[in-house]
C-alpha cells in the first residue's frame, strides 16, 4: 500500500470511528486509540475531522434540559402517587402515618375475603348439605305415607276448588290449583259480560 493509499484508508477509518464514538477518545476502543494517535497528529485533514467531531459533541451538550419548574412539579406528582401506594413488602406498623392509605374500606374488604377462608373450616358447607338431605328424606316419607294427597285436598278446600262435602271428596287435579287464579279472573270477565 502506498503512503497516499494508506492515508486515504486511515481517514476513512477515522471518519467511521468518529461517526460511531464521537470525538471523546476515552470512548474509543483501546486498539483504535493507539492506531489513530499518530494519524491525527501527522495528518491535518485527520486533525480537522477530529475538530469537527468535537464541535458536534459540543453542540449535542447544548441540548436543553428540563426546566426547574417542570421538574419540581413532577416531583410533587411522583410523591403524591407514591404515597397512594405502599412500597412492596412494607408492614403497616413500620410505615409512617402519612403514607398509610386514607381510604382503607376497599382494602379491608379484600383482606377480609382473603382471611375468611383461612379462619372458616374447610367443610363449612356441611350444615347446608345436611338440611338439603333431610328435606329430601322427609319428602320421600310424606309421599310414601299418603299424607301428600290429604295435604293437597286441604289446600284445594282452602282455595275453594273443592268442597268439604263428603261426596265431592276425592282427588283433585293439582293443575287446577295452579290455574286457580286464571279460572277466577275468567269468571270475573264473564260476569262483566
Amino acid at each position, binding site marked *: 500500500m502506498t503512503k497516499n493509499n494508506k492515508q486515504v484508508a486511515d481517514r476513512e477509518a477515522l471518519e467511521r470511528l468518529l461517526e*460511531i464514538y464521537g470525538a471523546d477518545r476515552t470512548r474509543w476502543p483501546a486498539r483504535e486509540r493507539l492506531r489513530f494517535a499518530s494519524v491525527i497528529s501527522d495528518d491535518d485533514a485527520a486533525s480537522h475531522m477530529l475538530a469537527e467531531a468535537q464541535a458536534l459533541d459540543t453542540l449535542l451538550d*447544548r441540548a436543553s434540559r428540563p426546566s426547574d419548574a417542570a421538574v419540581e412539579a413532577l416531583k410533587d406528582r411522583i410523591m403524591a402517587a407514591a404515597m397512594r401506594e405502599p*412500597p412492596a413488602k412494607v408492614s403497616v406498623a413500620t410505615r409512617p402515618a402519612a403514607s398509610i392509605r386514607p381510604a382503607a374500606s376497599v382494602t379491608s374488604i379484600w383482606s377480609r375475603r382473603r382471611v375468611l377462608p383461612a379462619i372458616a373450616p374447610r367443610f363449612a358447607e356441611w350444615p347446608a348439605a345436611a338440611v338439603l338431605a333431610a328435606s329430601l328424606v322427609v319428602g320421600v316419607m310424606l309421599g310414601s305415607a299418603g299424607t301428600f294427597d290429604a295435604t293437597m285436598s286441604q289446600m284445594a278446600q282452602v282455595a275453594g276448588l273443592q268442597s268439604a262435602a263428603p261426596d265431592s271428596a276425592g282427588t283433585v287435579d293439582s293443575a287446577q290449583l295452579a290455574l286457580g287464579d286464571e279460572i277466577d279472573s275468567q269468571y270475573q270477565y264473564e260476569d262483566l259480560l
Partner: protein
Amino acid sequence: MGAVASDDAALVAAAAKGDADAFRTLVDRHLSSVLAVARRMLRDDAEAEDVAQETLLRLWRSADGLDVGAMGLRPWLRRVVSNLCVDRMRSGKRLTVVEELPERAEPATQHTSLEAQDASRRVDAALKALPDRQRTALTLFHYEGLSQVEVGQIMGISDEAVESLLARARRSLKAALREELQELLSDNPPE
C-alpha cells in the same frame, strides 16, 4: 462503594421501610437525569414525564430487596427508564410527536443568553428529527455514557447495529447542524 452509592443504598433501604423523606431525597437526586433521558428518547415532554414518573414509582415499589451497586442507583434507574422508553416506542403507544419545541417557561438568566437558548432549540429540533432508534442509541451512548454493548442490550440489537445507528445519527446531525458547526469551528479553529 462510593459515598453517593452508599448514600443511595441507605436511602433505598429507608424507602423500603416506607420512609417518605428518604424517597423524596432519591427523587430530588435522580429525577432530572431520568427525565432528561426520557425526553431525549421520546421527543414528547408529556410522555417523557409519564415515563419518568413510572420509573421513580417502580423504585418506590421495588425498593425492598433492590441491590444498589457500586455505582449507586443511577445505572438501575437508567436501565428502567430506557427500557420503558423502548417499550413505548415498540408498542406504538406514542402520543403526538412534537416537532417544534414548546415555549420555555424558564426566564432567561445571566447564564442562559437568548443566543444559547436558540442554539439549544436548534439542537433539540435536530435530535427530535432523528428516527427513534437512532436517537435512542445516541441518547444512551452520548448522554448516558453507556457502552456500545450496554446500548445493544437495552435496545435488543447487535453491536454492529448499534454502530450503524450511531453513525447514521451523527451523519444526520452534522447535516442538520452544518451552520452551527461552521460557527463553532470558525470560533475555535483546529490547532
